[in-house]
């Protein structure tokens, strides 16, 4: 059988309440809040975070391919997915490629993965949705990453079995953005609304047939659309027919672009009971429908941090000015310090497992941990007698910390801590997703893959530590 092995969403820590925007731009406060990628996050880092979560939920399954979809890629020309490949420490024979640019890349990747003969395909998706101040993308958008591990398996291996689905495609102009442009433009939405309604209906009906289902068999449907009107027609019709239409997360997250279909799928499976049939509809320059039946394993495959948990967490203290500065909409004065130099491509490649995978080395004799990896041990001096020590998933504790208002940062001040890892090992490293006043000695932290800075167009990725939040997804509860 083919289906979903595991799926996970990643929501960034920060929230921008609509009221915070309205206080500056005027007008009536819109819906609740949107998720906001931190200044050191992008589509790729959020996708990696989701990928770590999905893979952790299926530890015995290794992806045979990695596909990454986004409309806000770090690079054109250069493949973005290879960075995720390195961060997730996938094997060298696992191809990694992008489905970047258009919103439909995610649904197309999911469709292709479900029809693929690869034993397992890891789909990553991420997007940072932004636009000029006051734009629909700023108001209705959200930032997120999502991951879906698609593959072969039986009832005990798959979280959900793929039953069938269909696609409908027709060229029409609804929303568009020129490469490099901040602003996404749109045709009158009523045009798109009608076109999406037709396409959705076709894909839905054909999908049901393909899956051999009646409407009554479908317990729940999630609909991802680029704007509220696009999804409204189908939602209304299915709702009237008695199908439970899942929350589109518009009020708590926002439309997360290429991430959204995968995010909604992860959310659907989190809430699905064994045996339930759930459907995903993705509207993006066409319509794609997917029908799944949750298995007995669906609960076991649930990621440690669910979408629901992450929606409930989050920090809405972010000011609108800070948000605008993070997105580059509002230029701000940096400290009068030299900006970081670009990383060396060859030096980074030599340290691939360290820089992207956060793998140190451990002295085979003394157990002394070295971050970064070293050839000579600081305990006993053994030479070239170390094992790789993957540390990305090892919890750590703040031994001491400081706040640096002088150092260059895309978002000063720098919060920096000496972190001691459970089971030994230390690294002085930058903290993120934290307010300076909230740091304390003894605070529990976890590692997160981030974009430190960009120089010469080269994005410099590495790891930071962030506080372990006391949400329901925090099993450590420290």
């Amino acid at each position, binding site marked *: 059988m083919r289906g979903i092995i595991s799926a996970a969403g990643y929501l960034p820590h920060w929230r921008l309440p609509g009221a915070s925007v309205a206080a500056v731009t005027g007008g009536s406060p819109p819906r609740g809040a949107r998720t906001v990628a931190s200044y050191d996050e992008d589509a790729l880092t959020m996708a990696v975070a989701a990928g770590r979560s999905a893979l952790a939920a299926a530890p015995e399954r290794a992806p045979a391919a990695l596909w990454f979809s986004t409309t806000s890629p770090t690079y054109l020309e250069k493949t973005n997915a290879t960075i995720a490949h390195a961060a997730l420490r996938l094997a060298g024979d696992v191809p990694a490629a992008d489905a970047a640019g258009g919103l439909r890349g995610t649904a197309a990747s999911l469709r292709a993965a479900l029809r693929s003969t690869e034993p397992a395909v890891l789909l990553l998706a991420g997007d940072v949705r932004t636009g000029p101040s006051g734009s629909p993308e700023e108001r209705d958008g959200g930032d997120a990453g999502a991951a879906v591990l698609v593959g072969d398996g039986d009832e005990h291996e798959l979280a959900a079995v793929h039953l069938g689905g269909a696609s409908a495609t027709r060229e029409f102009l609804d929303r568009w953005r020129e490469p490099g442009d901040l602003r996404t433009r749109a045709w009158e939405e009523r045009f798109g609304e009608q076109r999406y309604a037709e396409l959705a209906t076709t894909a839905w009906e054909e999908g049901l047939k393909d899956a051999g289902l009646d409407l009554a068999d479908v317990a729940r449907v999630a609909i991802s659309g680029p704007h509220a009107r696009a999804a409204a027609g189908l939602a209304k019709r299915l709702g009237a027919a008695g199908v439970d239409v899942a929350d589109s997360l518009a009020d708590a997250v926002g439309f997360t672009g290429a991430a959204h279909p995968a995010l909604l799928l992860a959310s659907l499976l989190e809430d699905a009971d064994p045996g339930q049939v759930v459907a995903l509809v993705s509207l993006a320059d066409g319509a794609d429908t997917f029908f799944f039946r949750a298995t007995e394993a669906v609960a076991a495959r649930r990621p440690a941090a669910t979408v629901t948990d992450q929606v409930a967490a989050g920090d809405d203290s972010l000011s609108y000015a800070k948000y605008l500065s993070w997105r580059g909409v509002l230029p701000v004065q940096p400290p*009068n*310090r*030299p900006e*970081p*130099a*670009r*990383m*060396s491509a060859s*030096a*980074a490649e*030599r*340290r691939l497992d*360290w*820089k992207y995978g956060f793998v140190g080395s451990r002295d085979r004799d003394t157990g*002394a*941990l*070295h*971050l*970064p990896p070293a050839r000579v041990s*600081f305990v006993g001096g053994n030479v070239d007698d170390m094992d790789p020590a993957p540390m990305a998933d090892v919890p750590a504790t703040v*031994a*001491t*910390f*400081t*706040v*640096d*208002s*002088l*150092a*260059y*940062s895309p978002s000063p001040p*720098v919060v*920096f801590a*000496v972190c*001691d890892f459970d089971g*030994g*090992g*230390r*690294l*002085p*490293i*930058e903290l993120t997703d934290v307010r300076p006043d909230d740091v304390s*000695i003894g605070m529990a932290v976890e590692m997160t893959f981030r974009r*430190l800075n960009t120089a010469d167009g080269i994005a*410099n*990725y*590495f790891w930071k530590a962030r506080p372990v939040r006391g949400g329901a997804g925090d099993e450590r509860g420290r």
Partner: protein
Amino acid sequence: MASHGIKDQVAIIGMGCTSFKEHWDRGTDDLLVDAVTETLESAGVAKDDVDAWWLGTAQSGMSGVTLAAPLKLAGKPVTRVENYCATGSEALRQACYAVASGAYDVACAVGVEKVKDSGYQGLNAFPIPTDGTQRTLTAAAMFSLVAPAYAERYGIDPDVLRRTLARIASKNHANGAKNPRAQFRREMSVDAICKMPAVAGMLSVFDCAGVADGAAAAVVVRAEDAHRYTDQPLYVKALSFVAGSGSGLLDPGFDYTHFVECEAAAKDAYAQAGITDPRRELAMAEVHDCFTPTELVLMEDLGFSERGQAWRDVEDGVFDLNGDLPVNTDGGLKSFGHPVGASGLRMLFECWLQLRGEAPDDRQIDTVERGLALTHNLGGYPGEMVSFVGIWGNRPG
């Protein structure tokens, strides 16, 4: 295998030191010419009498040509050295060893740094291509880690420690106010320093060394030749240097309340010089007060205070100009700024003045009869640093 030192084998016979300030009208070449000219006059030797030169500069120039070209040194060995913030002391150390070895009769060590041409605040390291994973914290922030760690280990209220650190800065400013070569010549009260906004941890800009340009130099000869040049040479009693392994960054056992490299360098230096009770045998010390917590911890690492007691000794005025062991009598990095290549030699220049009784009356120490002075540099960060300790005396034996 052992560190034997070269006690009383070589001596300083002349020194010079420029003023340390924002020398907008002086380039690296000018500072070198000024410092060397003053030094040669002090020693009573001509440029051509110097057999070999060592130039310490962290990033104001590369190679010996940086010194040879502006001084028009022809046909002489000139070596440029760099060793973080101990660069100036490293130049001197190499010159001393060269003379002690018998390779040369007269050597000159010069240190210079032209910091203020960068256009940025603070000291900024030359970027070496890396994998992009290195820390980008300022030195102030790295050293700020020491204060809360020290307070926690010894159970000191952070507000009390805040005043102790301010007292260190206030003492050094008071000393610097008496020194015409210093960058900052204004006294600062403890209260005024405590009111400054924090920029890194609990540190304000007044907990940080200034940023200045400057140069200093010394002429070194064999001890037995010294009296041909001066009646008051300074004898080299000890030269020690430790480059840390960086294990403090890896080792959860390191608690940021001491600097192992400085402890080790001090231990070696005291052994070379035959010193067993530095607090009572030394007349003075010039230590690397890059940040106030650094000077606090150094009082313990250098053996002037018991562990956990330096803050009390600071409060008791032990290290004041008229205290039991005056520290940074010229004003320190706090008042002088820190032109990296020059600082170590600037410290020695203060010892040169004090041990020869040439310091101005309002700065002359009462302890000079002890006859020994210590200079100390460190460079790098807590957990991964280099440290130099030198001991100098105004009489042999």
